[in-house]
């Protein structure tokens, strides 16, 4: 697997996403910019400039027409993928930690940060998929997280039926996506070690969570039941489920400030592959010089990419043996 390095960001990557066809990669960084890249050769397709602070999150709609970004400047912005045109800006009182489209692209959710007197919220907008259309400023749903610890990650389940949220205290919740009613809250990860990522299976009936407690868990939407647990030896920032083959990919690493020694071997900056069903580690991919902040798999299952604290995105196309491995 010879990696392609996407260099262009000047600071740590925070999230990376593939387009539905797997041909484009979208990345956001603390350098205030969002970028789009060709997955096959690593050439830059475009830059989306306008945010006034670090970006925390990005998502692209299923038609690869609209791009949503959110960050420390307290805005969610909607862009036209093709032209880079800014279509809409929603403003909030605190930073945006997550954005995600529903599977049909008709809804967009955002997670706002909890800060002085402001509770963490999950807000939802209805989206018009036409880039020429006027987008609404009206929230169709607003979940205020007052009884539970703050939300760190969130997403829409299959058919936009539920919203699943991961929390600061390691728990995972399920909400009715129409009414905003809390249906279930379960403790999944070690107490007070936050859920750092939540990514979906292709049909959005199950998902994987990553946590600072050094584990990732495969969970069902319907019962919030933990199906599988993947144990790593380093705090995890991200976890992805591979389509086609039954693997999961975990990324993480000890943050520089927590590493007690300068020894590079301490960091464990590797992407780890586990067998999804057997929970056994299969292999690791090295390369980053800092923790992996996000890992994403192409929906076609032919490649994955990782965004690191070191400012690089590494794209790895799987070799034939990957597909032969049973």
């Amino acid at each position, binding site marked *: 697997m010879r990696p392609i390095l996407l260099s262009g960001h000047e600071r740590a990557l925070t999230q990376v996403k593939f387009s539905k066809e797997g041909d484009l990669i979208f990345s956001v960084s603390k350098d205030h910019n969002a970028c789009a890249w060709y997955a096959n050769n690593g050439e830059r397709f475009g830059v989306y400039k306008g945010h006034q602070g670090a970006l925390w999150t990005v998502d692209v709609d299923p038609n690869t027409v609209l791009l949503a970004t959110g960050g420390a400047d307290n805005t969610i912005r909607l862009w036209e993928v093709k032209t880079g045109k800014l279509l809409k800006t929603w403003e909030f009182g605190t930073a945006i930690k997550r954005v995600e489209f529903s599977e049909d692209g008709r809804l967009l959710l955002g997670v706002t940060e909890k800060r002085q007197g402001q509770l963490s919220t999950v807000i939802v907008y209805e989206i018009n998929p036409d880039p020429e259309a006027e987008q609404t400023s009206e929230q169709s749903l607003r979940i205020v997280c007052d009884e539970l610890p703050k939300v760190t990650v969130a997403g829409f389940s299959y058919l936009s039926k539920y919203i699943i949220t991961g929390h600061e205290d390691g728990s995972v919740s399920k909400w009715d996506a129409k009414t905003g009613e809390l249906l279930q809250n379960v403790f999944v990860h070690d107490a007070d070690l936050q859920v750092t990522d939540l990514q979906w299976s292709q049909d959005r009936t199950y998902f994987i969570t990553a946590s600072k407690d050094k584990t990732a868990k495969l969970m069902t939407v*319907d019962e919030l039941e933990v199906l599988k647990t993947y144990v790593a030896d380093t705090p995890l920032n991200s976890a992805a489920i591979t389509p086609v083959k039954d693997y999961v990919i975990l990324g993480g690493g000890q943050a520089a400030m927590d590493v007690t020694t300068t020894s590079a071997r301490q960091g464990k900056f590797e992407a780890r592959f586990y067998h999804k069903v057997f929970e056994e580690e299969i292999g690791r991919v090295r390369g980053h010089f800092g923790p992996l902040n996000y890992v994403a798999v192409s929906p076609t299952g032919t490649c994955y990419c990782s965004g690191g604290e070191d400012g690089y995105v590494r794209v790895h196309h799987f070799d034939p043996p990957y597909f032969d491995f049973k």
Partner: protein
Amino acid sequence: YEEEDDIDYSDLYEQYEVQMEEGLDAFVVLDGLPKVPAESAGKLTNFVLKRLNTAGKTSSERFFMPIDEATNMTGGYAFVEYETPAQAIAAVKSLNGTALDKKHVMAVNKLTDIERYGREGRIDEEYKAPEIEPFVEKDHLRWWLGDHEGRDQFVMYRGDNVGVFWNEKDGQPDSIVDRQHWTESFVQWSPKGTYLTSIHAQGVQLWGGPSWSRQKRFAHPGVNLIDFSPDEKYLTTWSHRPLQVDEGHPILSVEEDGKNYIIWDLATGKALRSFVTLDMPGPSTDPEGNPIKKKLQWPAFKWSADSKYVARMTPGQGISVYELPRMNLLDKASIKIEGVVDFEWAPATPQREGIKTYEQLFCYWTPELGSNPAKVGLMTVPSKEIVRTRNLFNVTDAKLHWQSEAAFVCVKVDRHSKSKKSLATNLEIFRVKEKGVPVEVVDSIKDTVINFAWEPKGDRFVLITAGEIPAGAAVPPKTSVSFFCPEKAKGNQIGNFKLIRTVDKKNNNAIHWSPNGRFVLVATVLSQQSFDLDFYDFDFEGEKDEKDKDLTANLQLMSTADHYGVTDIEWDPSGRYVATSASVWKHRMENGYHLYDFKGQLLREEPIEQFKQFAWRPRPARLLSKEEQKAVRKNLREYSRQFDEADEARRNTANREIVEQRRRLLDEWLAWREKTVQYLREERED
């Protein structure tokens, strides 16, 4: 950790907080009972209980009447627990001296009275001490030796948990017991592996048997360190803080007040004698007036090989030898050895040529005093005969290294030149078993010897030398590792010691011999930069170099490995495996352990958060006679065939199990997916 429920904390607290003050006060001891056959014990119990219940409340569950196994009769005495100490006192008052029938008059005494009475030595030697925990059926303490596969056990302390495991030939260790908060500071096996010791603020507890139940406990508040006698009959506990014992303490007496050491009798649970810590010689403050932290001599009380004596040195003055089990000072006086700096008992009873009764032996050394040269001496105990002395000159320091069978003692002498500048080391090797105890000197060593180790049960040794440290150097100096063995000699004689080989430019600082000799691991531990593990074979079964043909060794480097951050190394008792660990007590990098086989092949590495301690369970000496061992060796081929078959079968089963387990997991997964996909299809249609 489901086992957690098995530990009854209340009991522990009760022991130390309640029972220590009053727990045993509810017990009474009955004597003068009729001796009846075991079958009639129940009847007698009921008969006596009727009387007992007139003074307070007790029951057959709290009534214990030992049966003499030899005669299968009751012993004529019993222990009884009342509900409260007040009832016990009432029973002593009203029932002591009650006639049961014409022949038998029952004596009722408080157990604590007898305890105290016994403690102060006012009763005669024949008195049979009462057992403190008579209700527990005795476990077979050596159960673990009966493992059919001949596996070894080890204990691991990580986080708050202490677990004991079987070491598996292939694959994960098999957990036997795992308990949270089993100890408060560390765990320690007794020398033959019978007990696992846990250390608590209030004292120590000994655990064992297949149920890992508590076997003994010793109250020593603030205990820091412990040491067993080689035969596991006695235990030394030490606390840096002097004991504070008030009048009326149920276990300790005023005798122990202000003391640091207690020497206990394991069988009775009694403190035999207690001592204060001796100040080490030298100034207690530095020139600026800051207190100097002196290195503790541990163990200060050293046991003779037969556990009949325990001795402590008063630096510069002499050695006090105490006789067990009475703990009286041998011949009522300490042995005067002016200037004595260190002493070590022979680790085995040495069989010396031309001597009929083998006595215990210790080796000591004294520095230059005035015009007298430094001296090394060997003294027998109990006859206190000086067997051998040897004068030494220009001595800076000396270290005493006994070979495990007491065949040799090597005195490593650091010597300075006349100008007192350069250092060199001499080895003065006393051949203890040979007539007249001849001394062989190895003086070819230019640098300072920083480590030395005899081959256990053998006659070869390894040493590490280090060059001078350049002033202000950031890195430790390079070291050299030298291997020695005796030359070939006629008959049973052991030839002169010869250098086999020196390996230069190393960083090694540790020598770990396999417990059975032959294999040695030379390592670099507690270093920031290097973590080498070099595995050597002294009897490699391959071609031998021509130049080594007169040596009793064929040295071969088997392999080298590297364990990042290694702090501790321990061979298993069989010499088949070595565990190396990185303990959080020393640093916080990559804590956990590695397991190697004897030849240095890495079998397993397990990173464990908050990893503290790894210790193999020791085993007692072989239970087989020489003849039996010989028979085993003779039939090894047949055993070998059986073991090969068993191993093969195990491997196959294990493989089959893995495949089946995977098949099952996959089937479950596919079934769940099918159900979910079907459900989703219906949902979408709606």
